[in-house]
């Protein structure tokens, strides 16, 4: 690795910034800090961060508005911090272009793993640049449109494959119900979440060793689905 990657941490709580700064610096990242939305926008321009960690509850601006402004000119990955029971806010942030979110309070091991995976995704453009995606026993060959589980080829319907394709392209991050429905079924069906549920159920019976305890295709309740990327692990 050449110069260290820079992470901009935006949170109005100094204690939160302190432990994020300490742990991210220990991982070898350069850390910038902002405590208001205005300051965040300034530093996002001046500091050329490789990733922004953005708390949604800022004193001067709505965090989603900050994200919106950043997205007008930059595709830098944005990692959103949110509090419990604000699912609508998470969905809004994801649809405004956030790459991932984590709910406060969170453990550092998981946070760092997800920061790394967001940086890696942005580093390689999109995940699709790798023609074969592998997680656990699941293998999706995007070039040849073939899905294998434990080396055995699976037969998927076109819509099932399309759904998997969208999830693979976004591997590691949450894709909202709305985004998935839009991609797979089109504009007319973006509210038909039950279509999606039924398809996910079918996909799981194909892909998961135990569909009732999914290991690859994870439900983010009330938000969407996440296909686990190879470097993601569940921590305790």
């Amino acid at each position: 690795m050449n110069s260290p990657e820079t992470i901009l941490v935006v949170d109005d709580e100094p204690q939160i910034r302190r432990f994020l700064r300490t742990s991210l610096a220990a991982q070898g990242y350069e850390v910038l800090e902002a405590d208001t939305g205005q300051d965040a926008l300034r530093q996002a321009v001046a500091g050329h961060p490789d990733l922004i960690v953005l708390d949604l509850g800022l004193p001067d601006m709505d965090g989603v508005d900050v994200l919106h402004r950043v997205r007008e000119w930059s595709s830098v990955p944005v990692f959103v911090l949110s509090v419990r029971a604000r699912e609508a806010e998470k969905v809004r942030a994801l649809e405004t272009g956030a790459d991932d979110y984590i709910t406060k309070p969170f453990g550092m091991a998981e946070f760092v793993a997800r920061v790394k995976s967001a940086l890696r995704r942005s580093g390689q453009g999109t995940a699709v640049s790798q023609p074969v995606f592998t997680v656990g026993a699941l293998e999706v060959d995007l070039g040849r449109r073939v899905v294998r589980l434990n080396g055995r080829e699976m037969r998927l319907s076109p819509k099932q494959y399309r759904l998997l394709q969208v999830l693979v392209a976004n591997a590691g991050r949450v894709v909202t119900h709305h985004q998935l429905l839009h991609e797979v079924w089109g504009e007319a069906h973006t509210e038909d979440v039950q279509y999606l549920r039924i398809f996910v159920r079918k996909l799981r019976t194909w892909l998961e060793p135990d569909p009732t305890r999914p290991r690859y295709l994870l439900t983010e309740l009330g938000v969407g689905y996440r296909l686990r990327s190879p470097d993601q692990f569940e921590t305790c």
Partner: protein
Amino acid sequence: MNAQIPSVSRVAKHYGGAAGTVAIAGLIAAAITVFVPQPRVSVLFLCAVLASAALWGVGPSIFAALLGAAVAAFFFYPPIYNFGVDNPQDLLDLVVFAVAAVLIGMLSDKVRRIAAVMEDARVRAKTDELREALLNSISHDLKTPLASIIGSATSLQSFGTLYDAKTRADLIATIREEAERLNHFIGNVLDLTRIRAGDLTPRFEIVELADIVDSALRKAACLLASHDVRVSLPDDLPMLRLDLFLMEHALINLLENAAKFSPNGSRIDVTAETAGRDIRLTIRDRGIGIPAGDVPHVFSKFYRGETNDAKPAGSGLGLAICRAFVEANDGRVEALSNGEGQGAVFRVTLPAADAAYSELMVADE
């Protein structure tokens, strides 16, 4: 309760009722006159006044008194069919009746006011009791983990260099575990506040039980890490119409409860079945069970079971919240136990969504 402003129609109803009691008294008096000439009918009218006072208060009772006096004078005291009263004895009778009736009306009103004040005091006392219990619980459940956190952190700060790696790791683990306990407790208190504020308007969606179970298991993964959790859900369960978050939360609380009251390494089973138009979800642990007499109380606020080993006691809120959340989803939750040492079973019954949704197996292209 006390400061009710009676509506016009209610007032009319009360006075009508008072007139009705007088009419009934009059009819009975008339029937008696057939057998007994010149009865002391005023006693009957007094009964009408008493009834009006008890049922409708001072106004209607005085109205009944005046009406009763008029009816007695007109129909029963000679000259009959005339408001005049000839016999001085009868006149005295009527006056005594009227005075007694008005006194009764006023007394009854006083009794009602006293009853209202007492009811008020009782409700207030009960609220105070609840507030007290909540405050006690909060100060205990906040202070205990905070004491461990501050103790461990200051100990690391002041003497960290003197400890070996294991001691330091223990202290750090304590800080973390206690902080998580604090977080969990605060979540419970917030939920309880939501329930108490009547702010439990479920956002119903058509969902699969498996999704909720999966999400709850992942969120409770740390609590369940030292248990052997086995899930068995049939593939063909109908869809449910639920508020995802309320139900997920109810489930997390049940799983947490199972983990807390059963030994590490023991098995917890999560199963589901269709029961008529309902879905029944069962969580069974192999823990200490519930003493028979306590089964009806496990869902009460501040009921705390005894944990047998070093596990911290709960806040006594988890199951109360669970029940409130399940009921907000039109479901039921019940506790079953064969007694102490026999494990506990919690059964949640939820109505299935309309069959139309379950059969909506969208044509795949």
